[in-house]
């Protein structure tokens, strides 16, 4: 079951929770939460998304970055200078991943739909 505070809006600004220990290995990572003594394995995509939860990027920005990295979606601006929506499949996957990260206490929901960059570490590791 996904969290009630699941991040679903394009303008939500998720940020990594403070106090987590991250050990990146190749393109993946293991996170340790000392407060709850729990371990989490993030595969490549999950780590990519979690690492970009910096309290500045919006959900849409993260989805754009995923699309760009995996070359699956349209991102940036169209020829008229308007922002284009990311591929809905990518956006859906990113939202699900963010919800799962939130459910596991790996990102805070305190910056939803705000632009508060103070709640995040700048360095994921």
């Amino acid at each position, binding site marked *: 079951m996904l969290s009630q505070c699941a991040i679903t809006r394009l303008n939500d600004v998720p940020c990594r929770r403070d106090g987590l220990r991250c050990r990146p290995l190749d393109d993946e990572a293991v996170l340790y939460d000392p407060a709850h003594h729990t*371990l989490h394995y993030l595969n490549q995509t999950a780590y990519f998304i979690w690492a970009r939860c910096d309290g500045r990027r919006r959900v849409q920005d993260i989805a754009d970055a995923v699309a760009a990295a995996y070359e699956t979606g349209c991102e940036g601006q169209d020829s008229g200078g308007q922002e284009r929506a990311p591929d809905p499949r990518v956006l859906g996957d990113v939202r699900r991943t963010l919800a799962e990260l939130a459910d596991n206490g790996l990102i805070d929901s305190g910056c939803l739909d705000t632009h508060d960059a103070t709640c995040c570490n700048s360095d994921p590791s």
Partner: protein
Amino acid sequence: MTQLAAIPTRLEPPTGKQAAASSGARLRGRELPHYRIGPVSVSVRSDLVEVERAFHELYEPYRVHAPARGEFRIEVIAKRSPRSLRRYYHIRGNGEELFTVRHPRSVLPHVEWALNILVSRYLPVCFQIHASVMSRHGVGIILPAPCGRGKTTLAAGLLTRGWSYLSDEFALIDPFTLCLQPYPKALCVKAGSFDTLARMGLPLNTRESYLKGEKGRVAFINPLRVRRDAVADPCPVGLVVFPDYGGDAPPAIEPMSRARAVFELLRVSFSFPRFRTRGLDLLAGVVSKARCYRLRTGDLVKSCELVEACLQRRDSGEG
């Protein structure tokens, strides 16, 4: 994608009263034999003399003449039940009662088990992972798995093929050098593997078999009986292979990511509750220099060949 791990609960050391209860080990007028098996010092005193003798046969090369500081004390005390008048054997570790068994043939496996419990609780120096550990040409391989996944059988198979032995129970990692330390306890082989291992040349004495709870009939083998130089020196980790018994399916091996391997290793670590963040960093450091695989075991010879092929690829720098 994310996955929570079940972290073992930290176990506390015995109280002073429990420790004092074991001082009876020095009584009874017999000299207590002391052993140093890798970093582990232990003494065993048994009311069942054949248990002391069997333990000595397995660990005679590691006999020392004086107790070391922090020595683990294992005692086997025979008592009759006041109601049934049956004789039971009470196995104590550092004064704490750990097991009570009825059959004399169950005592030695539980003495071994008691020693494992003491190591997992009270050996503070090394980072511990539940695993068999072997090496070849100075390169260590960790075979981590819970009980019943075939890690001992695989280790025994590799032993018959010229690999060196470090442990059948614990990967002990020195936190300063990140090297594997030998803890050359006897291999405990289940009856289901007797024939296969005998065919591969393991000198098992199956007439000297024992009973170990749900594992059923088991036999112990001192690795030094396979080869005089069978026990390895400390070595770095080159491979991490997670075995899982696949029954009749053909053996297969596939790469595993290093992050996944660290995650899985921490789940079968006895030390993580104590080391915590330092344990994560330590294991990440170890695994960053290793190649990691998941192995579906089955036919033992084929399984060993798959592991050897991985080591060969690593040595030759192939992808």
